């Protein structure tokens, strides 16, 4: 109980935030490397971006509390992520229309 008390007393440590984003990021990596479906890859990318966002704001808050760089960076990142998702999904749908598949392994028409 004491341990729990000790742990829970005080601020949330920065490491905890970083740990969360770390797990999120590498979950994203895992998904990016292991999935074949383009949408799933996109999901993984979103995860990674999100993890990065968290890191930005956490560092901003903990290390440079008076400034807003991290905050703005996260803001812009969200905007860009939105753009990227929109374009990516447009491409995916287009691919699906042409090739009726969204599996990366099968999308090698351009290669050969």
């Amino acid at each position, binding site marked *: 109980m004491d341990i729990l008390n000790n742990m829970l007393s005080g601020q949330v440590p920065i490491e905890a935030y970083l740990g969360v984003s770390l797990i999120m990021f590498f979950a994203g*990596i895992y998904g*990016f*490397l292991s999935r074949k479906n383009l949408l799933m*890859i996109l999901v993984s990318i979103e995860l990674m971006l999100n993890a990065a966002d968290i890191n930005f704001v956490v560092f901003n808050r903990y290390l440079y509390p008076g400034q807003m760089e991290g905050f703005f960076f996260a803001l812009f990142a969200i905007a860009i992520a939105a753009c990227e998702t929109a374009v990516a999904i447009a491409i995916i749908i287009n691919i699906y229309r042409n090739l009726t598949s969204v599996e*990366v*392994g099968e999308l*090698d028409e351009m*290669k050969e």
Partner: protein
Amino acid sequence: MQYTLLIILLPLISFIVLGFLDSNLKPKVAGAIGATVLGIITVLSYYTAFEYFTYHQIAGVYEKVIPLHVEWVRFTEFLHIDLGILLDPISVMMLVVITTVSFMVNIYSLAYMEGEKGFQRYYAFLSLFTFSMLGLVIATNIFQMYIFWELVGVSSYLLIGFYYTKPSAVAAAKKAFIVTRFADLGFLVGILFLSFYTKTFDFGVLTSGDASVFASTAGVSFMGISGMSWAMGLIFIGGAGKSAMFPLHIWLPDAMEGPTPVSALIHAATMVVAGVFLVARLFPVYEVYAPEVLHGIAYVGAFTALFAAVIACVQTDIKRVLAFSTISQIGFMMVGLGVSGYGGHEGLGYMASMFHLFTHAMFKALLFLGAGSVIHSIHNNELNHMGGLRKYLPITNITFLIACLAIAGIPPFSGFFSKDEILSACYKFSPYMGATMTFIAGLTAFYMFRLYYGIFWGKEHKHAHTPHESKFAMAFPLVFLAAFTVFAGWIPFGHFVTSDRANYDIHLDYTVAGISVAIAVLSIILATIMYRKESVVPQKLASCFSGLFKAASHRFYIDEIYIFITKRIIFKHVSTPIAWLDRHVIDATMNGLASTTQWTSVKIKDFQSGQVQQYAYVFLLGTLLIAGLVLFF
């Protein structure tokens, strides 16, 4: 004596003309050209002989005449191949022998080969052969001899393989060429050895007796045998190949696949004695610098003579019998040379050997031509298809008989004189040698009469059509050669050809002569009993010595051994593995290099897969690795 050049050139021209025009000429014209040219050069060489023996004797010694001499190729400062004409007693004698036999064969062939396809080609080849053989004997240096030696081999190849649609003929031609080629390898290496130390190819220098020529050979030895012995031994191998000495004799019986006149010319009278001629040519060198080789030659000759004579006793193909008889007789000549010393009485063997060469050429050619006449009339070579032919072929019968008597060594036929001289020389060398050779002489008489009776006497066979005596063109050479055979023995040979080119009187050694004649007569009587009429004795004897009989009729399995060596060992266990090695090891290494490169590039290509995920993976790993390295080290 510049005109001797014509003797060489005319057959060459004839060859070129006949060869180029080939079937554009009528066969008759081609035959006429060939025979005429031979006639001309025969006359020329008789004249040469006459002039040489009459006018070129200085103080009882015949001089060497070199009417023509040009440098052909220069190898080094000292060594150069020259082409030239050397006239000395043996070459002049050979000129006579070759042109006579060749002329006879040319005439004979007019009838014998009539109607054959490629008649023109045949005459072209005959001219080529005559040219090469003449070139061989008049060679001024050992390399010129080698050149013509090879040309003779090729002409022989072409003539044996004349019936080129017949597989056995093609095989025989190939065999003849390859076996002699193998021997020529020895000859060539021998020449290289000899010329390296003596710094010359020239016969004149080599046989001059000038010791300084051989000075640099002193002390040279290899594997305990002196350099000169090596050189002369190797050269003898070349001679042994051409002259069918054991164990290089195997090609000669097969060479009988060629047309019979060719066998008479090449494989009885001229080319096969080239080896003897070679030894005779270099005799002074052998005698002085390699006496042990000379003795070796004697033993090889004796063994071959015996060996071939035994085989000849059981062969059934008449040409083969004659072929083995030839081998045996050449053995005699080799023995004659081998046992001989140099100069005067010492050189008896040499003189006898040359004498025998001369007489043998005549009567063996006669025998072959006679056999040809028989074959021509019944179209078969086998002894058991013959018998009783004396009624149909009277001229052939008589001439054949004369030749048989000559080879058996019955006086007064020529063979008696020459063989008797060889036997005397042998007895002088060692009694054992003499006894052996006398025994072989007896065997010779036996198998020759076995042959004679087998053909002309005994039971008559049914023939498809009645055999008839040959035309004049065939009969004339028989008679001519028979005349030669009868009278040639009376030529005072010692006045012409001796080891030191000095005059020498032949004395008959009556003891030796008596013994040999007695044995010959006994053998003939034995043969008469056994073969003149149908008799069971031969069968009985054959079954009595069945092992020996079988071995002899298989020619003592020498051919099988050769086939084993060539087919099994060379072909299967040398060539095939080498070819395999080439494809599967050496080439495979090269291909392996190529495929490794290809494999590597395929593997590298996979890195460039276009799969973003893979790139990301590698990128990540790389990042981790680099960051790790930066942080931890």
